[in-house]
């Protein structure tokens, strides 16, 4: 069954220069392992292909059952000089949550 990440997890975006950070936090900590196996850095890179130009690194934080995606070259140069409407990329957390995955559970 396909589910949107929005249905099972929440996210907050942050910015540092031209780097976008996206947390991915399952509502139910039992979903953490499933997210680890399905929401890979490559899949997120494919999903955000129109937004993120650089490399995406995924960090796993089992201590808080959360993932963190760090996306380089993602903010049209960054908050101070970007031509985008959302110069920080603050709203991009919900771009990640638009991603669909096969819910194996």
């Amino acid at each position, binding site marked *: 069954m396909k589910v949107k990440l929005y249905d099972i997890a929440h996210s907050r975006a*942050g*910015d540092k220069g031209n780097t976008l950070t996206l947390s991915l936090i399952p509502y139910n900590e039992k979903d953490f392992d499933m997210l680890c196996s399905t929401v890979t850095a490559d899949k997120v890179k494919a999903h955000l292909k129109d*937004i993120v130009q650089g490399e995406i690194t995924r960090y796993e934080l089992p201590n*808080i059952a959360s993932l963190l995606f760090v996306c380089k070259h993602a903010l049209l140069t960054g908050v101070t000089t970007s*031509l985008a409407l959302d110069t920080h990329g603050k709203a991009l957390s919900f771009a990640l949550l*638009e991603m669909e995955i096969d819910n194996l559970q």
Partner: protein
Amino acid sequence: MKRPNILRIGCGAGFSGDRLEPSVILLEKAELDYLVLECLAERTIALAQKRKAQDASTGYDPLLEKRMRLYLPLLKKNNVRLITNMGAANPIAAADKIIAIAKELRIKIKVAAVTGDDVFDKINKETIALETGEPLYKAGELISANAYLGADALLPALQSDADIIITGRVADPSLFVAPMVHELGWDMNDFNVMGQATVIGHLMECAGQIAGGYFVDPVKKQVEGMAQLGHPYVDIHTNGEAIVSKVNGTGGVINLATAKEQLLYEVTNPHEYFTPDVIADFTKVQLQETTQNCVLAQGGTGNTKPATLKVSVGYKAGFIGEGEISYAGANALARAKLAGEILYERLHPDFPELRIDYIGYNSTHRTTFGDVVEPYEARLRVAAKAADATTAARIGEEVEALYTNGPAGGGGARKYVNEVIGILSVLIDRNTIQSSVTFRES
């Protein structure tokens, strides 16, 4: 400290424009030892340097006077010390302003201004910027350079009897780490302790963001009382355990989900979170909901502190011109897109990096996902950079001219021109930085 072996710090502002009232509630009801107001973003200080260059008595936070008139009587009445980076580009002028307000309100107060972050004279313009890989001078005219000071810069001020400690650029978590070191006797060379102190500071520094602000979602993350959102305070025990909470009766929520979102906010590597105090490791942090609206945080660690400090360098990056116009009803998006095509033809030759978005369709994420339902209305947004304001203004002028030279039914045209101050980062040897403290009394 008002409780034995427990330090209580509130955070009443997470950015310069944050709401004024939550601090009043913290000061009145939270029995704080310290109130921290974090009001200085990367670009904010460059803008403040610009104001200071025009008038040497300015350059501090624009809301300083408003906040101080409101908070000074409560700080004094309830014996709460204030730590804030509202000094921005001019902490001493900010201290003078606070003293002037205190005299007017007949409040006896001592202010300590921490300086030394302004390193404009020490920066080599040949230094390679971290973001671009190119020397600083290539970016354009440089207007400011401020190093991120650490908790150590605040300690002399804290060791004095100053009621208010006002700074310029200090790493956000360090505003919290400093009172922990001072009051709890923590060793700044114990990097595990500094790691935990930094975790606490990081959880707190965005104020309302750990209490349901920037968290609530009407479907998946419902939160009560958002209009009366409370800002957080934290109880820090001598062993490093910290319990984040908020005043009873305020709106919002503090739970595992809000704490997790905030812990990872703006973190680019959870194994190595750089501050001037420590390279902290967030990957062993444990969060636990103890009671309603109380989260226990422990387990932050660290290895060492960086040999260099980050410096934010501001430079003049030209101007951005913007224009917007709306279309609604039948084929609204198609009419907006036609307007976009017309403007592209008219502007693209002179503005090769012209940005064209459709608000209500693809402007916020710069793309769309899956099948998108045709919106009832769409707003064309056009933006481009230019070296001067007059050229940048052409963007808005051409958008406005769509009224009589574009598709049917366009309305609500707006045009903007803004000067752009860019920010680049460089690293500086921390031994070249010498902070100092200046006192003022009413």
